[in-house]
Structures are given as C-alpha cells and as structure tokens.
C-alpha cells in the first residue's frame, strides 16, 4: 500500500539536518510520497525504514525480464488502465506452443517459422518473442531432450517451459543453465517443489490457479519461500474470463496496491479456429496480458497481431516520428527526382517503401511536422507553403541537384502555386494522392 507523507515522515530520522537538500524531514517525506525524490538522498535513514519504504514504493507490477540472450522480453511495470492516461510500458510478448510429443520435423518447422517471423513495420523490428514448450509425454527425459534441442536450434529465444512435474522441470532446467526461462506449472499441489526448483535455477516461476482468489493466495505462499519473480495465470481461457480476470488484476495492483497479483499475466489464446485465436490474442494484447500463447504463427496472423500491439503500445502523447532530413533512396544522382513529405513515421515508411518499390533512385525530403500525417499537418498549419519553402532553402539541396523540381503529395495539390511563389526558380509537380501510385508515377518522370 502506498504510504502518505506523514507515514513516511514517521520512519525518517527527524533531525532536520538538511543533508537531503530539503529544509525538514517532513518536506522530504512529502516529496517522497509524491515520488519526486529518492530515499537515497537521506544518508541517515535506518535499514528498517529502507525496507518498509522500499516495499511501499515498489511499482504495482513487478518488472521481470525473461530470457538472457540478445532478445530478452521485459514485462510488468504497467501503471495505468487506459492507454490515453499514459503510455503502456512493456508490449505483450507473443509465444508459440510446441509439445514434447510433436515430431522432430514439426518442432523444427515451428522453430524455423519462428526465426522467419521477424518483420519490419514503421521502422520497428517485430517478431514472435518466445517458445512455449509443453510437457505432454509424462517422460522427464523426453521433455528435457526436447527443451535442449529447441534451445540449441534457437539459442537466443526466450523459453517458457511448461510442466507440472517437478522432476521434469528439474531435468529440463539442468540442460539450459543461465537462460532465464519461465518455468510454468506451479499450482496448489506442487508449489513447494516447483518453488525450490525455480530458486535453484534462478528462473521465473509461472503460477497457475483455478481462479483469482486461489491465485492470490498461492503467490503469497510462494513468495514466502523466497521466490520473487512470477508470472501468473488465473485459469481464464474464454474471452470473457480473460477480460474479467485481467481487469481485476490491473485494478487490484494499481488502485489498491495489492501485491499478491502485481505480476505479469500469462494468457492462453489457442483455438482450433485461427481467426478466432487472432481475436482472442488481440484481446490479450489490448487488455493487459504480458505473454499470450498461440497455437501457431501463420504470417498473416503475426502481422495483424504485431500491428495491433504496436498501435496499442504507442505513446498517446507523441506520435511516432522520424528525423527531419533529406533521405536518398537508391543511388540518387544529381538528376534524381526530389519529393517532400511529413515526418510522421507511418507516412515516411509507407512513402519510402513505395519509392523503393519503384526502383527509381530518388530523394525524399522529410519535413518536421511534429509527427503528423500529410493532411493532418496541413490542416494544423504545419505543412504550409512557407514552411516547405524555408525547409527546402535551408537544406541546401539546391546545390546537389540539376533540376529544381519538387514533387508534392497529391492531397496538398492546393499548395503548388504558393510554393512556387516562395521558391523562385523552382517548379512544383503534383504527385499522386496515394503512395501506392508512386512507382508508376516515378517511372513516367524518368
């Protein structure tokens, strides 16, 4: 539970020595309560006060990192329920399920698909983040062998090892030391043994209970054994149950500072109907899961889910933007065409992608418009004739090109006369409205 300024004050030395930079201990306590100061600033605070304050000031969702290689997954740290309040912090990881009873070929195919899942969208590299390896065989040797072989095939990929058998967990974890996987499968009947194994191998423990009440009790019990890093599963499987439990968990941790559910949530979206699976996974992404497990990763499905995740996790205050400058696409010589657009990431990547498609070497002048799209920037007065003229003049591009010709987006054709007036000696050409018409257009320019 967050402490008030007065409660914090009671824990301070009360000497008003000012070493913290504040006139009194009380003033310092008030700043701490507002999270505008750090306890380190007071040199004389007692160990006990440190412990109590540390607990109270811990974030509502424990920050946890899964994996150890180049592609770790950060989870937790969320502070709000709605994205318009503040940026959601750590994007929901997508994991694909394989079973230790699957054939070697099908496991290899799954790992290959996973490696091949990476794509780039709006300048971000996106990929399936983890493999969920489920023990179905009942045979610890077989399970650990499967885990080892997958880990060898995809050494950097974070793993989620799923078994309720502590012996199988032990056997598997021994084979992959130092990889910091999730060991998923602690429940009411095996909690102690699983907690021991998790501690011994320093892994994250995945905790399952059949409902939220039982889950909250179980995490407290496990925490008392010394396991700090958990991901939690309330047993919700339908869309309605996932929404309910994830919402209750978010509210409890953030609004009521309930620590026993302040952990990243793992959800399961597997369905025979893959389109429905994509929708349930969308719910998990939008509504508070930290990991969602999928049955398969067709490319169309990952593309849609990556995109949704990107949308939900962008900063609501600052649109994604790229640097203002004149980009060369291909071997742009002095006679290459020059185009202008705004610095909204989406606009830039769509337009530059189409220019690449055209195979016509060209220059794309990207003007700072505070991350707004062409029409929005125009409507907001940030993509005007005088601003465009000034940007082109100050860029010095005139000296590098043989023909003073500027291609503008079709949607702002209305600007062409005014730009010509403000850029003496230049000719303005109105390009197509939609970027997908650019390849054909650029070819006719040549």
């Amino acid at each position, binding site marked *: 539970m967050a402490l008030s300024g007065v409660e914090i004050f009671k824990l301070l030395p009360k000497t008003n020595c000012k070493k913290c930079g504040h006139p009194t201990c009380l003033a310092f306590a008030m700043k701490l309560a507002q999270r505008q100061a750090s306890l380190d600033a007071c040199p004389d605070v007692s160990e006990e006060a440190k412990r109590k304050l540390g607990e109270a000031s811990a974030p509502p969702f424990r920050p946890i990192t899964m994996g150890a290689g180049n592609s770790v997954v950060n989870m937790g740290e969320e502070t709000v329920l*709605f*994205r*318009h309040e503040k940026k959601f912090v750590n994007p929901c990881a997508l994991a694909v399920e394989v079973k230790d009873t699957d054939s070697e070929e099908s496991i290899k195919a799954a790992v290959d698909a996973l490696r091949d899942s990476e*794509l780039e*969208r709006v300048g971000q590299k996106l990929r399936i983040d983890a493999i969920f390896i489920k023990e179905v065989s009942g045979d610890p040797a077989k399970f650990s062998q499967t885990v080892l072989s997958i880990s060898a095939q995809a050494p950097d990929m974070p793993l989620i090892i799923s078994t309720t058998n502590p012996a199988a967990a032990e056997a598997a974890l021994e084979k992959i030391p130092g990889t910091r996987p999730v060991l998923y499968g602690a429940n009411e009947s095996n909690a102690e043994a699983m907690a021991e194994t998790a501690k011994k191998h320093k892994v994250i423990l995945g905790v399952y209970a059949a409902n*939220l*009440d039982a*889950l*909250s*009790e179980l995490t*407290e019990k496990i925490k008392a054994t010394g396991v700090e890093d958990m991901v939690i599963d309330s047993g919700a499987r*339908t*869309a*309605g149950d996932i*929404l*309910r439990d994830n*919402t*209750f968990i978010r*509210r*409890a941790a953030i*609004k*009521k500072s*309930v620590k*026993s*559910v302040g952990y990243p949530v793992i959800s399961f979206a597997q369905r025979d*109907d*893959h*389109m*429905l699976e*994509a*929708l*349930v996974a*969308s*719910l998990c992404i*939008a*509504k508070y899961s930290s990991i969602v497990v999928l049955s398969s990763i*067709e*490319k*169309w*499905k*990952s*593309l*849609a*889910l990556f*995109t*949704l995740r*990107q*949308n*939900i996790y*962008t900063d*609501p205050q600052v649109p994604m933007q790229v640097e203002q400058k004149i980009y060369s696409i291909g071997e742009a010589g002095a006679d290459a065409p020059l185009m202008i657009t705004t610095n909204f990431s*989406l606009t830039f990547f*769509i337009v530059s992608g189409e220019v690449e498609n055209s195979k016509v070497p060209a220059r794309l002048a990207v003007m700072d418009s505070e991350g707004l799209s062409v029409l929005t920037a125009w409507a907001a007065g940030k993509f005007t004739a005088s601003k465009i003229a000034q940007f082109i003049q100050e860029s010095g591009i005139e000296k590098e090109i043989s023909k003073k010709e500027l291609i503008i987006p079709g949607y702002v054709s209305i600007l062409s006369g005014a730009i010509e007036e403000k850029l003496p000696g230049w000719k303005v050409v109105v390009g197509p409205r939609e970027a*997908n018409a650019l390849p054909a257009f650029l070819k006719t320019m040549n």
Partner: protein
Amino acid sequence: MALAAPKETYAGRVFEVTIGTSKTAVFGGENVLPFHKFDGDTPHKPVIAFEIQDVAPEDWPDTVKEVYGDAASDPVKWALYCQNNLNAQAIALRLISTHPDRENRSADDAAKTVKAVLDSIEVPLIILGSNNVEKDATVLVAAAEAASSRNCVIGKAQEGNYKTISAAAMAQNHKLIAMSDLDINLSKQLGILITQMGFEKERMIADPMCSALGYGLEYTYSVMERIRLAALTQNDVIMQPPMLADIGMYVWKVKETQASEADLPKWGSLKERGIAWEAVTAGAMLLAGAELLIMRHPDAVRSVQKFIEEF
C-alpha cells in the same frame, strides 16, 4: 489472502437503441465498459451490419468482391443475399454512386434504390451517404423520406450538413449517425448542436471516426474509450449514445488487405490477411466501446460474432 474483486460501478448508462420494424436489432443499454458484465449490466450484444453499395463494388478488392460475385451486381439482390444467405442482423446501404466524383447520381435515384431495398428485406437498414458533405445533405434527406416509418439509421450527419440531415431523420422518425473527426470534444460539440435542434439524444449514434489497424487505429481506440468513460463516470448524457465503427471502408483500402503474397512473402496469405485485418480492427473497436459495426467480409463477421459469443 483472498482477493476482494475490485468492481467498478458508474453513474451513467449508454442509451439503448432499437432499429428496424419487422425484424429489429437492439444495442447499447449497458452501464459498464464494453463486455464488463462482471461490473454491471450488458443487456445487448453488439450488432454487425453488412455493408452493401448502390453500385457494383468495382472499387473493392477481389478478396471481398468474389465472395458476393453476381449477387453484388444489384443492391436488392445483394441485400437479400446478406439477409438470407449470410444471416445478416442488419444491412448498411452506402449510396456511394451519388458522389460527384463518381457516377454523381441524383437524390431521386438514391431514394428509389433505398425504397427497392427496403421493400425486399426484413432486417433493419442503415442508409449511408457518399461522405460528400454537400451532396449528402440532399441525398440523405430524400433517402430518409423514402424510408419513412421504417425506423432506419441515417448517416452521416457532420458539422457541415447536420442541420438538414437531422431535420429529415427527425421528421421521418429515424435514428441518426453523428460523425466527427477523431476528437472527443468535436464529438461532444456535434452532439450538442444536433440535440439543440430538438433531435432526441436517445435516437443518436455517435461515430467518432473509425481507422484501420496500423493506420491510426490507436486514435479511434482512445477517443472511443474516453467517450465511453465520460458517459459512465461523469454521467455526461451527450456522450451516452451508442457508438458506431464503420470498419470495412477503412480496412479494405489499406495495403495489407491488397498486396499479393508474391510481392510480400513476409506478410503471408492475402486471403486470411485481409479477413484478419478486418476482424482484428473490429475486435479492437468493440473493446474500445463500439456497439454497432459495419463490415464487409462474411468470414470476418463470422469470426467477430464467435468472439462476441465468448464474453
């Protein structure tokens, strides 16, 4: 320690709206966030309308066009196909051919099409203009008259044409879509202007402007969430009409629903990709607060309905 379920209750409630006459559809009525039945009442499931046009869908991508085939050559046939073969809960007829840059058909022509469609179907009809502010002001008035007493939805009234369109919807006893540009304050302002004309707020449907997955979806998502929160927490009656997400027209023009797998092997099968794009956009809009959806691909509609059944 057992967890005390942190439930929320709210002061406000979304208006319940019924459309159609012989067969009706009802949406809205909840006093909680979307699908939050664990907090309060969610009396109705969202309704999905199939989009059809008054001309053959030459401008739609092949993946959607081919589902309808010859049925789409005529609006009456198309509407019947949606109602009888696809079990549509409602139909949204877009009078796209009235746009001055398209066939520029007259308001009279549009009215005839509306009448012909209404005479043949039983499910509720949503009548949409071509989104040309001036032209819609005449087309939708004629359409509202042609549809008199059938309890249709007329749209969209915007800042530039709401007066004539709301007057017509009011006179002919229809429901009205009020569309504004992705901004909670603009949405509220339009709601105020329309109700000041005497149009009942309980008969309005708000369209805060949809956007496709990957193309501004986050803006619509957050504007809808904020509108719904204002309706519930502040009991702001102007924000309490149900919301519309007009999905198909935004989704089926983006690159992800058109580019072939040969051109972009990393994007996977075009057919599933297009359907997923429409379905995931719809899913996100539902979670943000939309109660009425307009969609194009029957497979996307079916998946979204299955998704709704899971709540």
